[in-house]
């Protein structure tokens, strides 16, 4: 199994990320211990310069993380032939249930990395680097999670046995099943649509309001939590109705197939805008408590406005892409349920 080119790519990628992350942690610990912004010693100067290295490395790690998320899904799709009953990514993930853990871990790490970059960005905007210790402690906590993810990924691929009889999206995301996924698929399309559009409208409205009233603290926090809730609702909606409109089949609920060429790779802008929008909305909320730090006040204001705008833009793009086939496809899901 391990000799599949895609698996080799993923494992290599994870190794590189791990080396980079732990390298950053070592530098980070040095910074946590030795940092003193009031000194102009050679040691302090060298620490300051190391922060550039960590920033660069973490930017790369984030890039890797995004690519590896897609490559993982893609690879799982490519190896589905090996399993009886598997017809796509879902089947391959079911063949060794830790596959789902890997997928979720990759998504969570994506957001945690994104949040780190948010904090880092703010910190670099203040002359006294007020968050420097905090962000490296955060990083030190994040790295083991990445190691865990890499380990899970490896054991997923090592644990895959060809010929395992597995269930595919048609059964996992079917209306009859009893799993969480299948109950999502079984939700009446119209109910799910109401929830989705209500959540989308609410979240967009909150964010739009926050572009004007940047300092509205409570709303800011609600919009942050709201972004995560919206993320889950959006995923459920993709399974429940967006997918079937793109596939034009009432029973095909797979959230992965839309990444394929036969659907014009529409999954990439779809997930890209969703992940990006949610990250920016959440990032703006994470920035909120740092407003209390004097040297960060203007930076927080400035970045929150920028991120909120980006979040609104991306979420609107996501809504347009999800709604597109509902409006323009001849397929109708109503009356099925």
């Amino acid at each position: 199994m391990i000799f599949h080119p895609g698996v080799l790519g993923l494992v290599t990628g994870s190794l590189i990320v791990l080396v980079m992350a732990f390298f950053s942690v070592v530098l980070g610990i040095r910074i946590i211990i030795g940092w003193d912004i009031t000194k102009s010693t050679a040691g302090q100067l060298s620490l300051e310069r190391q922060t550039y290295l960590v920033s660069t490395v973490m930017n790369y790690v984030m890039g890797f993380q995004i690519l590896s998320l897609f490559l993982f899904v893609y690879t799982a799709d490519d190896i589905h032939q090996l399993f009886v009953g598997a017809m796509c990514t879902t089947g391959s993930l079911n063949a060794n249930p830790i596959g789902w853990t890997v997928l979720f871990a990759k998504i969570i790490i994506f957001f945690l990395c994104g949040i780190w970059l948010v904090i880092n960005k703010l910190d670099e905007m203040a002359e006294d680097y007020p968050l420097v210790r905090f962000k490296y402690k955060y990083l030190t906590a994040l790295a083991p999670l990445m190691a865990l993810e890499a380990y899970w990924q490896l054991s997923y691929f090592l644990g895959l046995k060809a010929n395992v009889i597995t269930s595919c999206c048609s059964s996992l995301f079917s209306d009859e099943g009893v799993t969480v996924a299948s109950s999502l698929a079984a939700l009446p399309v119209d109910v799910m649509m109401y929830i989705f559009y209500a959540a989308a409208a609410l979240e967009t409205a909150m964010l739009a309001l926050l572009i004007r009233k940047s300092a509205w603290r409570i709303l800011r926090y609600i919009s942050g939590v709201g972004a995560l809730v919206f993320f889950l609702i959006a995923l459920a909606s993709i399974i429940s109705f967006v997918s079937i409109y793109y596939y034009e089949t009432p029973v095909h609920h797979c959230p992965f197939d839309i990444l394929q060429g036969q659907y014009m790779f529409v999954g990439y802008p779809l997930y890209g805008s969703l992940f990006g929008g949610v990250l920016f909305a959440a990032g703006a909320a994470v920035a909120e408590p740092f407003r209390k730090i004097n040297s960060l006040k203007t930076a927080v204001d400035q970045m929150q406005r920028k991120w909120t705008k980006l979040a609104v833009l991306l979420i609107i793009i996501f809504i347009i892409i999800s709604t597109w086939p509902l409006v323009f496809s001849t397929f109708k899901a109503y009356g099925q349920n």
Partner: protein
Amino acid sequence: MRGHGRVIEYALSTLARRKFKNFSVAAVFSFLIAVLSSILFLTHAYKTETLKLLEDSPEIILQNMSGGRHELIPVEYITTLSGIAGVGKASPRYWGYYYDSLTSANYTLMAYDENMQDIKLLQGRMPASEGECAVGKGVADIRQVGMKDDIFLTLGTEQNVTLKIVGLFSANSAILTNDLIILTKDSLIKFFNMPADMATDITIEVNNPSEVSTVARKIRRTFPNSRPILKNELIRTYDNIFNWRGGIVLTMFFGAIAAFMIFVWDKATGINAEERQEIGILKAIGWETADVLYLKFWEGAAVSLSSFFTGLILAYVHVFYFNAQFLAPVLKGWSVLFPKFEPMPYIDIYQIFVLFFLTVLPYVAASVVPSWKAAISDPDSVMR
């Protein structure tokens, strides 16, 4: 944002000013990517070709077993098989291997039946009467025969046959037809001296694809000595074999990649005096460390992406226009008469993605620390 655009421009002009140094890195990197891509492209082409052929093959092939070995199967089984629920059409196949001592090659001899009409002929037709045959490209080449020529096969004094070639298979999908000789059923039975009422195996079509394994179980219960081979199993096995072959070669190739990374590291850390001076000037006139890092990032991106695409194009040409001449010997090896395989050109986003992961990302990772080292030089270094 405007600033970023200008830094990118500057990065490109810097690369252009140092053509030779950058060209050497790009050339080596392109070559490595070309080799790596060729491996992936070729294995993938083999794989898809084989799988495409298997797709048309019957759901189940039933073999008779005796003492754990493949035996001839009684044709009368078909009557019983047709009675099993879910079984569509069942038909006997007659075929065998023939070792030609003249050319030291193995041929596959197969009796013609109407299912074969799908196989594309380059020219001519399928054999219709005794003494006629259609042959694959490989056979025709190795025996140096063409249309209307005779081909003589012998298994000793009794079993001789002289066949007139009335059809030639086209080169496409040569993987299956290359070593093939198709002759009429009677000629084949006579040549192999097979007992009457026996066939080599039986192909079974199943009406509902999702019931294949149930049907196979029923068949096994009815004929305990038989072995049903499922198409899905075959597909999986082939899939695995090709991935495995490709992976092994890739793994061996990793040594080369690692060596290259050291080379990159060396090139990048060994920034010459002129470059060091230039970065010093940039820092002195007001470029910030992050700007220089950005510059270095774009230099690396330009080199690695252009090498990446050059490598991909080279591999594409190598595999699809020159039939992977330099690589095929490594990956083939299961038949003396290995098909002169001409892969169908294709572009697969997934493979490009994987290749990117295996080449560009390690390159980028290897260049982080050296670029940073260059970028943190003191702004006042040029004043000393």
